[in-house]
């Protein structure tokens, strides 16, 4: 009897530990990418990571005939760092350095920067072809979700 209870308890404990571990892993994974979504003006359709990367490096200026207008969070923002690391495999410093060169050789200017998610949403809603990124939790109706960071 005792052996059976003990075995049952051990099974329950294993199950609980497995659930806890799964939960922790899921949370950790979620925190890693901060639940970031790439949003766009309603005229834009879903796009892949490569296209998003090329938009933020000035290599792509049109998607399906629509002129795109990326907007960035300010340097030092955690979402910006996570976005750049996931999309471009670049640090914020490397990204800033990239744009200093690109600007200096006359090939465009870096995306404008805003302070917070509300400013991103406002820019994306009011600018045709705008692309930005926010926390999934900040999503509001009327925005196109172009890409969800893995």
């Amino acid at each position: 009897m005792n052996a059976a209870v003990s075995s049952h308890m051990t099974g329950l404990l294993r199950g609980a530990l497995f659930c806890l571990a799964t939960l922790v892993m899921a949370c950790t994974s979620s925190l890693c990418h901060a639940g970031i979504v790439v949003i766009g003006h309603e005229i834009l359709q879903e796009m892949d990571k490569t296209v998003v990367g090329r938009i933020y490096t000035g290599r792509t200026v049109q998607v399906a005939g629509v002129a795109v207008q990326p907007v960035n969070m300010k340097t030092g923002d955690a979402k910006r760092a996570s976005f750049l690391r996931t999309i471009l495999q670049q640090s914020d410093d490397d990204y800033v350095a990239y744009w200093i060169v690109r600007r200096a050789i006359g090939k465009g200017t870096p995306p404008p920067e805003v302070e917070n998610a509300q400013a991103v949403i406002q820019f994306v809603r009011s600018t045709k072809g705008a692309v930005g990124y926010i926390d999934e939790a900040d999503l509001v109706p009327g925005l196109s979700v172009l890409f969800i960071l893995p």
Partner: protein
Amino acid sequence: MMRTNLSKCAIFYWIAVFSCSNALAVDYGLSGFGTLGGAISDHDTTYQHYIDDNGTLMRDSLVGVQLDAKFTDQWSATSQVVLAAATDEDNVLKPQLKWTLLSYRPTNDWLIRAGRLSLGGLLNQQNLEVGVTYDMARLPNEVYLLSSAYDFDGLSLVKTWSTTDYEITLDGTFGMQKRNYRLYANGSKKSEYVSGDVTGGGLVLTVTDYDQDMYRAGWSINQIEPDQGKFPNTFNFIPLGNGLYTLGRPDFSEKITATTLFLGARIPLGGFLITCEGTAVITKDVDTVPTTVGAYLNVSRKLGNWTPYITYAQAWTDGLDTWRKVKGATAVPQQGVTQTIIDDTASEMAVFDQNSWMLGTSYAFTPKQKIKAEVMLTHVGDRSAMFDGDIAHENVMVYSLSYNFSF
């Protein structure tokens, strides 16, 4: 004249843009950059126009501002003005119009630009003045000496092909420019600037992997017509007997043609970044500006905020025999060939036989602020026109320190 006209056009153009900005809803962006750089050598012979044992801030210091304007999704304009050592006289700082161009980008893969622009055959040619964009204290003069010779007032067409792994860009540029060439007359102990109209262009092919890998190959052809008189291109020698000879009247031409080949690569390799570039400036039957080849290899490694590096650079000219012959001519003052004339003629030849080792580091406070320090050892062979004066088979040490910024 052409340069002045473009400057006036640029001023009128920006006034017009500002005047119409409300109607056009133009987006402006102002940025700037600069370098405060000092260099001192252990030799009293001046190197690279300014560096000697007294030290100088003139060689590397500059400040620049850039104005970008976006008119529509496809049309934009850029203007860059740099205050730096003048290109038409010594020891003077002058504002210089580096870029002023109108850009039209109708699609992702086409870019059309008109105005003052640079061919960009060298990896850092277009961002040469923006010191914060590279880690070397000074880009090797063995290769970058003639980099500004590829700036044009003209047109550039850029076509880009984007594949999954690589971005391939073909840039065709052509135009004209007024250029000043500095000559140092060692006999008279003075420098002089000669100006000429340059017409030319070229093609540059760049392949990048969207990250640090970059490969570049380019070709450029330039035709130079001096403003005053003709260009002395071939020397003649008059035998005097007993193996002696003196200088005769040189052959002149109204223009010279130079073809330049560029080859460059930047490759990350096991934590290091390898950068190498080479140029060949090829002339035919021009004794005063013979064919010159230059190359360098740079190895750097990013260690936190520090990026130490080592560079080897070499320049060599296929005209040293002619230079030796000019240098060995006998003065015959009765025929108007004085020793001063012989020395002036020899030193004004664009002949290079030198190599340099550079050991340095940059320290990045932020991506927009860097301090750089470097020790450079240059060995001069028979002759190098980068030095004002006779210096042969000697080593020269140069110590450099600079603060570079952008905003």
